[in-house]
């Protein structure tokens, strides 16, 4: 039996994550959807804490709720003439069907399988993750850093405007 705090925390965080995720879909304004997305990310970080994943929860708050949402706000603000409407395409019905199918499938499998194994409690995961990252997974770690460098360079190269590009754009208009 878990402590009641964990049970209450799990249901609160799960409800908040799913509820604000639904509101991302339903919100009329794109910026409101973004705000609900941040709430969803934060409550997912709370769920990670109930799984005793302290480092990942902090990384989630820093990377998702912090930087990726700021990046999205920048993208919304840098497209001022585009519509702020969070409208649906004609593919919304197949999308909803796919979503329901996936959720039902995973839920059915999770209910149907008899899961074994006790829960493992980590007092801290940071030193273990650090040892694995610089030991067993050092090659993947280096490749991830190269990927981030190329993403940085690629993003800068995509959005930079050289003077000749600008003249071309004006000639097009």
């Amino acid at each position, binding site marked *: 039996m878990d402590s009641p705090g964990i049970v209450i925390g799990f249901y609160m965080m799960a409800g908040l994550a*799913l509820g604000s995720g639904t509101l991302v879909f339903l919100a009329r304004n794109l910026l409101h959807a973004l705000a609900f997305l941040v709430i969803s990310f934060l409550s997912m970080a709370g769920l990670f804490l109930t799984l005793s994943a302290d480092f990942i929860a902090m990384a989630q708050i820093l990377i998702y709720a912090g930087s990726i949402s700021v990046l999205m706000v920048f993208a919304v603000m840098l497209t001022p003439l585009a519509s702020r409407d969070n409208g649906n395409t004609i593919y919304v019905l197949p999308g909803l069907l796919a979503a329901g199918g996936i959720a039902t499938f995973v839920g059915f499998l999770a209910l149907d399988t008899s899961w074994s194994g006790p829960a493992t409690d980590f007092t801290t995961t940071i030193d273990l993750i650090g040892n694995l990252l610089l030991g067993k997974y050092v090659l993947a770690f280096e490749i991830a850093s190269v990927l981030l460098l190329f993403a940085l360079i690629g993003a800068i190269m995509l959005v930079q405007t050289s003077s000749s590009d600008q003249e071309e754009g004006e000639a097009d208009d």
Partner: protein
Amino acid sequence: MTEIYELIFEIGLMHYLIVSGSVFGLGTAIALGKRSAIAVLMGIELMLNGSILALLAFSRFPQNTSSDAGLVDGHVFVVFILSVAAAEAAVALALSVLVYRKRETVDLDRINLMRW
């Protein structure tokens, strides 16, 4: 009666997997059904978050304790997913700004340059 009580109040792998599948499904619905490119990005981030939750849940409730893989390997996988998600978001948002500059819209229904 006690079974139902245990099902509700004994938080296990099953509960986390159900939440993870639902968040992934929500992300799918948003990614497939939204018109704005930025909203589609939001859906993809939600899908990644759902899969991260499943990885962490399996790391806390290991099913095969005899294997020599450590218990925090799932956490390391999540670190890689986070870095790839950050890179992907940066490039995709740069792309949407670029498309906006050319076409003055990020509406995916109206970006039909490659349709014949």
